[in-house]
C-alpha cells in the first residue's frame, strides 16, 4: 500500500521528528523530555518512515544495525558511570564540567547517561520494529 503522499510527507516529518527528539533529549534535564522520550520520538520517526516507504528504505536511512545502536547507547550509559570512579567518588556519582553550553545547560555525566538512554531506546525500538517487519515479509 504505497502512497506517494505519505511517502513524501514522511521524509519531511522524519526530519522534524528527529529534530524534536534531539530537542527533547537535550532539554530534558530542565523541562519535560529526556533520553527516553527523545529516543521514543526518534524511533517513532523511523517507524513512520518505515510504514510509508517500506523496510529496506528504512534500513537504508537508519544506516546502522539497530543492535549496534543499542550497544552504542548502552556503552555510553555505562561509560558515563566511569568518570565517577576516576575522580574517586562513589559509583555513578555525577561529574560536571565547569562550563555549560547554551540551551543544554550544565554538561556532565548525567547528560551523557541520558544520551546513552536516547540511543538505546532508539535502538531497541528499531530493533523490535525492524525484526517484526522483516519477519513479516518472509
Amino acid at each position, binding site marked *: 500500500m504505497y502512497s506517494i503522499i505519505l511517502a513524501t510527507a514522511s521524509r519531511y516529518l522524519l526530519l522534524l521528528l528527529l529534530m524534536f527528539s534531539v530537542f527533547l533529549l537535550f532539554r530534558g*534535564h530542565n523541562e519535560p*523530555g529526556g533520553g527516553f522520550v527523545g529516543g521514543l520520538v526518534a*524511533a517513532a520517526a523511523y517507524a513512520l518512515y518505515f510504514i510509508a516507504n517500506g523496510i529496506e528504505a528504512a534500513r537504508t536511512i537508519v544506516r546502522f544495525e539497530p543492535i549496534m545502536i543499542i550497544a552504542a547507547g*548502552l556503552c555510553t550509559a555505562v561509560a558515563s558511570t566511569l568518570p565517577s570512579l576516576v575522580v574517586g567518588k562513589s559509583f555513578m556519582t555525577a561529574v560536571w564540567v565547569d562550563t555549560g553550553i547554551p540551551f543544554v545547560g550544565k554538561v556532565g555525566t548525567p547528560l551523557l547517561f541520558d544520551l546513552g538512554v536516547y540511543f538505546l531506546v532508539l535502538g531497541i525500538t528499531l530493533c523490535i520494529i525492524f525484526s*517484526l517487519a522483516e519477519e513479516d515479509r518472509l
Partner: protein
Amino acid sequence: MLVLLAIGYCASALAPLLYKRFRENFGWIAVIFPLFMFFGLLTRYPQIAAGQVIRESVPWVTSLGVNFSFFLDGLSLTFSLIITLIGAAVFLFAGAYMKSYAQTGRFYLYIGIFMTSMLGLVLSDNMLLMFVFWELTSISSFLLIGFNYHKESSRKSALQALLVTVGGGLALLSGIILLYTVTGSYEISSFYDKSEMITAHALYPAVVVLVLIGAFTKSAQFPFHFWLPNAMEAPTPVSAYLHSATMVKAGIYLIARMNHEIGGTPLWQDTILITGAVTMLFSAILAFKQTDLKRLLAYSTLSVLGTLVMLLGIGSKLAIKAFFIYLIAHSLYKGALFLVAGTLDHETGTRDVRKLGGLYKLMPVTALTAALASFSMMGVIPLIGFIGKETVYKSILELEYWGAFLIAGAVLAYALVVMVTVYVGFKPFWGSMLPTPRQPHEAPVKMLVGPGVLAIMGLLFGLFPNFFIAAMLEQSAQSILSETISLKISLWGGFNLVLFLSFLTLMLGAVFYLIREKVPGGVLRVSLPGIVRPSVWYETAINGVLSFARLQTRLVQNGYLRNYIIFFVVTTVSLVSFPLYRSAEQVTMVPDFSITFYEGALACIILVSTLLLVTSKSRLKSIVALGVLGFSIGIIFVIYGAPDLGLTTFAIETLNVVLFVLVLYKLPGFLKLSGSLNRARDAVIALCVGCMMTLTVLFASSFELSSALKQFFAETSFPDGKGRNVVNVILVDFRAIDTLGEITVLTVAALGVFALLNLRPGRRK
C-alpha cells in the same frame, strides 16, 4: 579411632584400583584390611577387659554439638570385633565367590565403606555422628543389595531396603534431636547420669518411639521385617555380612546402647519385649514354607534378631548374658552358614533346597563346615549355640507373667530354626545325590577358610567360653545395665527343665522337617491374606502414594493457564482481605471526592473504553480502545503535574499501536472460547480483585504522607543535580541505577525479540 575409620574409607576407595591390579588373588589382599582392623582392635582387649573406656574426640561441627567423638567400651568392642572378624571371612570368601560377577572392584569398594561405617556406628559416642554412619550403612547396603542391578527384583529390593531403613533413620534422627532437646547434648556418655531426667521428660515417650522405630527398621523387627528376606537378592557374601551378622544388628546395638540411658521404663521394656517376641515367632513360622537356601536363612535370622530384642526387653542380668552369648553364637554360625549357602550356590548353580542333596562326597570340607555351624545353630552341645540357647531359655523362664507363653513361643520358634538348619546344613550334603545345573566340586580354599574359621570358633567358644569372651562380655553388660555382672558361663548346666526344653526343641524341629518333606508343594504356595502382611502394606503405601501423587499432580499442574492464574488471584485476594479488613479500622480521613467536569469525562472515557475492550470481538477495535485508554491515562498524568509521564505514555502507547499492528494481523480474531459459566466465575473473581485494589488505594491515600524524599529532591535537584526537571534528575542522577537496570531490560527485550524472530527451527540465517 578417627584415624582407623579414615584409613578404612581410603582403603575402600583404593579397592577398585587395587582390584584391577591384582584380580586373581584379590581376596587375599582384601582380607588384610579387616584383619588389620580386627587385630588393631584386639590390642585394646586387655584395657577394655580391665574396665577401661577409651575415648577420643576431634571437633567437627562444634557449634551444633556434633563432634568426632568415639569411645571403645565392652559393648562397642564386642560389636567391632564381630564386624571385623566376619568381615575378614567375607572378604576372603568374596574373592572367589565374586569372580563370576563383573565389577568386583566396586563390590569391595561398597563393602569396605560398609564395614568402616559399621565400625564408626558402634564406636561413635556422639549420637549424630552415629546417625551419619547409620545412614552410610543403609546406603552401602542399598548399593550392595542392588549389586545385580540389571535384575528388576534386585533393584526393587534394594530400594525397599533403603526406604525402610532410611525411613526408620529419619525417625531415629528426630528421636536424637528430641533427645538433644531434653539433654542439651549428643554425647551418649553424657546421658549416662541423666537417665532419670530423660525418662521424666514430657518428650520421653516420643523419644522412645522414634528411637525404637529406627532400631526396629534397621534390625528388621516386625512389622518392618519384610525388607530383609527380599534383601537376599544381594550376592551371598553381602547377605552373610550385612543382612545377618552386622548391619541388622545395628538396631540391636542401638537398643543395647540406649538401654540404660533411656530404658528401664515399662514403655521401653514392654515395647521391645513384645516386638522381639512377635518377630521371633512370626518369622520362624514364615520360614516354614521357604525353599530357597538364603531365604530360609534370612527368616531364621529374623527370628534370632527377634530373640535378641526380646532378651533386651526382658532386661534381667541373665537375659543380658543370654543376649551376648547368643549374639556371638549367631554371628559365627550364621556367617558360616550363609557362606556355605553361597558356596553351594556357586558350585551347583541353584539355591533351591529341594534340588540339592548328597554333595558330601564332592564337597567334604564344606559339608563338615556346614555341619559344625549347623550344630551350633541347632544348639547342640558342645558348641556355643548350645550355651546360647540354654541361657535364653533360662532367662525366659525367670519371667513371672509372660514366661509360660514366651517359653512356648521360643521353643516353637527354635524348633522351626532347627528345621531350617536341617535344610541348609544337612540336606544338601547327605542323602541321595540330586542333579544340579552346574557340576559341583569342592570349593577353592578362599571360600573354605572363612566359614571354616567361623565354624571352628563356634566350637572353641563353646568349649572354653570363659577363656575367650567372658571378660569382654562383662564389660559389655555393664554398659547395658550399668551394674557389674559376673559372667561365668558354663557349658553344662545339669539335667534340668532347660535341658529338657532343648531336647524338645530338637525333636520338634525334626517333626517339622518331616512334615515339610511330606506336604504337597501346593501348601507352600499358600500365602497369608495381605492385611496381615506388612510387605503388602508397604506395596500398598507406595502405590497409594504414587496414585495420589498422580491424581494431585493432574489436578494441580493441569496445564490450564487460567487455572494457574485463578490460584494466583484467589490466593492474593484471600490473603490480602484479612489485613485489608483490619486496616479499614485505621482509616480516619475521607478521600477527596471533588470532581471537575473534565475529570468526570475522562473517567467516563476510561471506564467505557475498558468495557469496550473487555467485550470487544474485534482485535482492531480493542487496539483502538487500548489507545484511547493509554491516551486518557496520559492526560491524567498531565493534569496531575506529571508532564514527563504524559509524554512517555503517549510515546509508548503510540509505539505499542505500531507493534500491535505489526503483530496482530498475524494473530487470529477473537473467538468466544469460554462458556458463560466460566465467564461469570471469572467476572466474579475479577470484581473481587477490583474491589480489593480500590479499597487499598482508598485506604492508602486516606492520610497525610510526609516524605523526606520529596523535600530532599525539591531542595537538591537544582543546586546539586544541576537540573530543573526534578523527575529527570531523579532518573539520571538520584536513582540512575534504576535507569541502568531499566535500559538493561529494554536491551534484553530487544535481543529477545530479535532472537525470537530470527532464530527458530527451520530457519537459518
